[in-house]
């Protein structure tokens, strides 16, 4: 019952193959599954929603309506899955196993945090500076679905957006800088501080205000990789 002759973008073709595994959902004979709200959603529906969310975020300018609807649906699915403690091993789409599994394995709080941070990332659409990712320049932003060996699910989803900004227009970042977002970033050890989001929320208010020297240091970090060779510390 898939639409005929629908032109799919290249990235979607990989999804299409992987989702063919879940022929169950495509068979109109299984309409009953969608008719009565299932007590627990199939994890393939969850995977599908996660893929949609990921694909939506990969757009340079996500369709906000599509994004919000997918996120809300994902939350509903997640809420219905919560009581089911042990999720059965799913025929996960082979293309994005690590990301989907990461999210499945995480606690609910972490998933909410991931999604919340994804949405927060959208505030950067307005032209506010992107929170600097000190390790974002370690390689080209992964635009493919699976990413190149993503080690952290959330970062992978955030990756393209931040990479895009850093690659293309550093000058634009300085238009209006909201320093409150950098407070934690500045002091976090390089290996950890990669997840901006609600965890940083309380930290933002508590961190001491940056002084001029710290701002200068921050500028250097953003502007050039040579900043990484300097030992991190307040001022110079």
């Amino acid at each position: 019952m898939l639409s005929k002759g629908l032109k799919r973008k290249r990235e979607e073709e990989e999804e299409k193959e992987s989702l063919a595994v879940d022929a169950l959902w495509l068979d109109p004979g299984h309409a009953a599954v969608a008719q009565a709200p299932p007590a627990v959603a199939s994890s393939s529906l969850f995977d599908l929603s996660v893929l949609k969310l990921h694909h939506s975020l990969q757009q340079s300018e996500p369709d906000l309506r599509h994004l919000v609807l997918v996120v809300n649906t994902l939350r509903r699915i997640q809420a219905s899955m919560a009581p089911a403690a042990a999720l059965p091993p799913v025929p996960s789409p082979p293309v994005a196993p690590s990301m989907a599994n990461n999210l499945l394995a995480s606690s609910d709080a972490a998933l909410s945090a991931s999604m919340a941070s994804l949405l927060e990332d959208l505030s950067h659409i307005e032209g506010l500076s992107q929170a600097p990712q000190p390790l974002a320049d370690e390689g080209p932003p992964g635009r493919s679905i699976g990413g190149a060996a993503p080690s952290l699910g959330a970062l992978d989803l955030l990756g393209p957006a931040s990479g895009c900004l850093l690659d293309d227009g550093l000058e634009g970042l300085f238009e209006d800088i909201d320093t409150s977002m950098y407070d934690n970033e500045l002091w976090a050890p390089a290996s950890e501080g990669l997840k901006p989001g609600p965890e940083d929320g309380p930290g933002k208010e508590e961190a001491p205000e940056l002084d001029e020297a710290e701002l200068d240091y921050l500028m250097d970090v953003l502007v050039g990789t040579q900043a990484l060779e300097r030992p991190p510390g307040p001022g110079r």
Partner: protein
Amino acid sequence: MGEDTDTRKINHSFLRDHSYVTEADIISTVEFNHTGELLATGDKGGRVVIFQREPESKNAPHSQGEYDVYSTFQSHEPEFDYLKSLEIEEKINKIKWLPQQNAAHSLLSTNDKTIKLWKITERDKRPEGYNLKDEEGKLKDLSTVTSLQVPVLKPMDLMVEVSPRRIFANGHTYHINSISVNSDCETYMSADDLRINLWHLAITDRSFNIVDIKPANMEDLTEVITASEFHPHHCNLFVYSSSKGSLRLCDMRAAALCDKHSKLFEEPEDPSNRSFFSEIISSVSDVKFSHSGRYMLTRDYLTVKVWDLNMEARPIETYQVHDYLRSKLCSLYENDCIFDKFECAWNGSDSVIMTGAYNNFFRMFDRNTKRDVTLEASRESSKPRAVLKPRRVCVGGKRRRDDISVDSLDFTKKILHTAWHPAENIIAIAATNNLYIFQDKVNSEMH
């Protein structure tokens, strides 16, 4: 109803042979002007094509009131936002005509970010007999000029000139989904996913924000604006719809920022139809006031609903557009069809409502007789001047000869954009890159 000529001739050969559609030609909006004399279409390539209705003539009775191309122009070009490294699509999202105030016609056209005011004028005379220039415009040798003459206006072939009079830019961070001209004919509003701005038609460097639903923390974003429209008679009232299926009627006299609605129209969820996709299918894709101003028409994924402005609790009428899709929602979610945004339309007397569906089908509901009909807009099933045959979708059980089964519906052929002539039974249907204009020749007048 008979069919008028399909005037987009460029891609006919492509369609017949390969089912290949030039993306730039995909029609993205259709709008009649206030008299119905002109019909404007916008497409994905940023072009606007205006059709004009030919006056009825006794010489050719068969071509009475047909629409021919009047003007074509490039309204929007693709742009690049250097700051955000984003390409801005040139696709025309909406066109709205301004009420005609002099010999010229004006319309507003918008893409995702910029609204433009276009003025369309006719020139059918030109001055001849200049003293200093000859017919080709070259300066005359003054020694040959012995007497003065007054230039006279001589008729010429009709020339339609289009010029951009205003460009309303930089008003929106998010994608513009609707524009609406106020009944005061001085202001108009534009809505994007999170904000609505009020503009004065003569002022381009300033706009007033009248609705802002952006949360302080984007993490808390759960709802976006999907459509908006000014009340046809009360210049202080407007409505906007949301992705959660609610409508908010706002009064601009109450406050400068209309975040607090005057009325909230929302139907409680039907518990027997609950599913994971309940919210998605409740998302309102279009809202239109009736011509009378007393009702509103909304379109969500499976239904069209008529609301009475005096009753907020629930719609007064609900019509099923394609309820047979209710059991297919999961597949439609998978292929993203569940996110398609269909428009809806009233006829001139507010007695019939129309909306599009899949397989190039469109539906009409008569509010008085409660009868409905499904028709198809396609070259194969309708020859010019033929009468459209009602179609039927069968969901199993007894199947009649010409029925289409649900599983053989073509979901790539969607009728998203439709328009109804303000006074007569003439409708314009956009089917991908083809425009169909149907006329009810038997019952030309409104009932």
